């Protein structure tokens, strides 16, 4: 096939546009700020962003299954707290890490149980657990100042360098890859999409939609737990309010990457690219020494532009490549002309 159609083919992969925008942004920053590509600067912000990637990956499952999870930020903070506490109590590294992850899983289960069993609104429920998790962290930090463990291995969880990046990033990347593969290739992943696309048809085709949703929330919780461990190891200190607001970054990132909040559409790499886009933007603005007072404005505009760009490129590509497609419009138009 000729170049043109190759190009359109690539462009018609959803999320490519935002990826392109991301690359352009990186290039821009690296030219305009001498210190953008300084190793430690990159390492640092990716390291800071690693927890966000983890929760974004987990959250994507929930969103694709047609739900939302606002609690991940606070849960991440709490998990960081619990794992560090146990590490400070002298528990072995692996045990402390497990505690952190378990905390996340526990909240995942709580969310899942309330939402799927009582069929109540996920937004409010996870907002509730957000407050609860955040509150528990405050109680924890009031009770005990979490100012660092002596366990060097614990810090090593996120801090060790391998192939020029920290283990924190490695963990994040691994998790993203594994989750993405599972989502796209496993039969569970298939059920997640089905549930998000249509609860009723999926249900009638014999899919236990409630179970699927349940598991999605647990995954999301687990990722928050893992993220907490990484963050705790990275900061080696935890305080109340830690990681508050991460959930919004994650959601914004996911949507920016083209994950549909109505469920059934999107994938993890796109969500993570979206999150990466936001994290990079922030870092870049800092390195350029832009007045922080207008960060918000710039970020907001970038989100808007990003979303529009992503879709318009996709549609354009579709329009071009459309010529060599079969005639098949009827239903499309009926759905798309809403």
């Amino acid at each position: 096939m000729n170049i043109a159609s190759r190009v359109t083919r690539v462009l018609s992969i959803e999320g490519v546009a935002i990826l392109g925008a991301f690359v352009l942004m990186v290039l821009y920053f690296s030219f305009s700020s001498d210190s953008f590509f300084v190793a430690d600067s990159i390492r640092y912000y990716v390291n800071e962003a690693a927890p966000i990637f983890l929760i974004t990956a987990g959250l994507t499952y929930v969103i694709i299954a047609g739900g939302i999870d606002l609690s991940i930020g606070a849960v991440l903070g709490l998990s960081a707290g619990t794992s560090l506490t146990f590490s400070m109590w002298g528990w072995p590294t692996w045990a402390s890490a497990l505690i952190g992850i378990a905390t996340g899983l526990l909240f995942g289960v709580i969310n899942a149980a309330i939402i799927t069993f009582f069929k109540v609104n996920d937004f409010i429920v996870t907002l509730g657990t957000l407050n609860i998790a955040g509150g528990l962290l405050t109680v924890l930090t009031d009770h005990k100042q979490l100012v660092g463990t002596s366990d060097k291995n614990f810090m090593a969880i996120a801090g060790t360098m391998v192939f020029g990046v920290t283990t924190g990033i490695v963990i994040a990347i691994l998790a993203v890859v594994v989750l993405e593969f599972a989502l796209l290739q496993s039969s569970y992943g298939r059920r997640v999409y089905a549930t998000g696309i249509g609860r009723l048809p999926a249900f009638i085709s014999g899919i236990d939609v409630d179970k699927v949703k349940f598991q999605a929330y647990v995954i999301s919780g687990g990722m928050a737990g893992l993220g907490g461990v990484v963050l705790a190891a990275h900061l080696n200190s935890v305080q109340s309010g830690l990681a508050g607001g991460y959930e919004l970054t994650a959601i914004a990132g996911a949507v920016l990457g083209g994950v549909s909040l109505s469920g059934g559409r999107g994938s993890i790499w796109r969500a993570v690219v979206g999150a990466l886009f936001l994290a990079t933007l922030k870092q870049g603005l800092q390195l350029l020494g832009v007045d922080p007072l207008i960060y918000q404005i710039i970020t907001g505009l970038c989100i808007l532009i990003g979303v529009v760009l992503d879709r318009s490129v996709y549609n354009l590509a579709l329009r071009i490549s459309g010529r060599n497609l079969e005639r098949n419009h009827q239903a499309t138009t009926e759905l798309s002309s809403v």
Partner: protein
Amino acid sequence: MSEFRSKVSIASTRNRALMDPSFGVVALLALVVIVMSIFQPSFKTSGNATNIINAMMTVSFLAIGMTVVLISGGIDLSVGSTMALTAGVAGKFISYGMNMYVAFIFALIVGALVGLVNGLLITKLAIPDFIATLAMLGIGQGIMLYWTQGVPILGYMSTPYYYIGGLRKILGPISIPMIVLVVVALVVSILLKKTNLGLYFYAVGSSSVSTRNAGVHVGRIKIWAYVISGLLAGIAGIHIAGRTTTIPPLIGNGYEISAIAAAVIGGASLLGGRGRVVGALIGALTLTLTRNIINIVGIASSWQAIVIGCVLIGAVLANRASEMFGKRISERTEKLNKRKVSA
């Protein structure tokens, strides 16, 4: 598969009380109030009542606006920062020496404009409402921060503004904000119940395709919803500026969440098509009451968030419970009627 089964089960116009989307939380509130007044003498003082009402004003305004947006099937995360922005406009302009009421008008215009922009982004550019308003939240915050350079706005208070802020009462416990809230609540409920626009809000939220087929300009309707929400954010801004007598640039942070929570607790559906002004007020009351009780009972501040979280979940569970119960009853009565018919 509740939503599916509901297609099957025969809907009934009976048991409105029980079926009422916010019956559960109302019952819950009643219970709490009774318990509190028994064990906390200071709770049932008229003074405390007025405190609670005054404290729920801001959220109430925002929640009413949010309810309209939710009914039309959208969501507005920008109300908090819009409120801050409008408060800023009012405060700054007054401190520049502009006539207070003119400044208020400007504030309202700004609020409406933000709403308009939201609406246009969502309908014309087809940006997901969640993300569009999230971006507007950031932009609003940014503008406010840049404008004030992060310094709280001061020196705009005047005697009339003390009245408007509700810091001074006009007679007895009655303050101007209370009256404004009542008026706003009435106007919006009439709008929702008695006008085409109101009907369209419900229709669009319930099924935008069908509504369009019926010859309604869905886009315009959505835009109106966001404009109304913005306007109410403006009112909330004017009010909170008067209540706090100083405007920190980030004064609106977190209010959008409270507003959504209030609306949903009050029975609005995030899926659209459902919601009432009364519900919004009930929701706002729930949230305010929680804080009030926390302070009166003297729950350690570190535990407050936990309590609030539990209240949120408890509220939606209570509503759900009453709804289920109501369905049961209606199905039973339905069956009885059938018997009568066939007999």
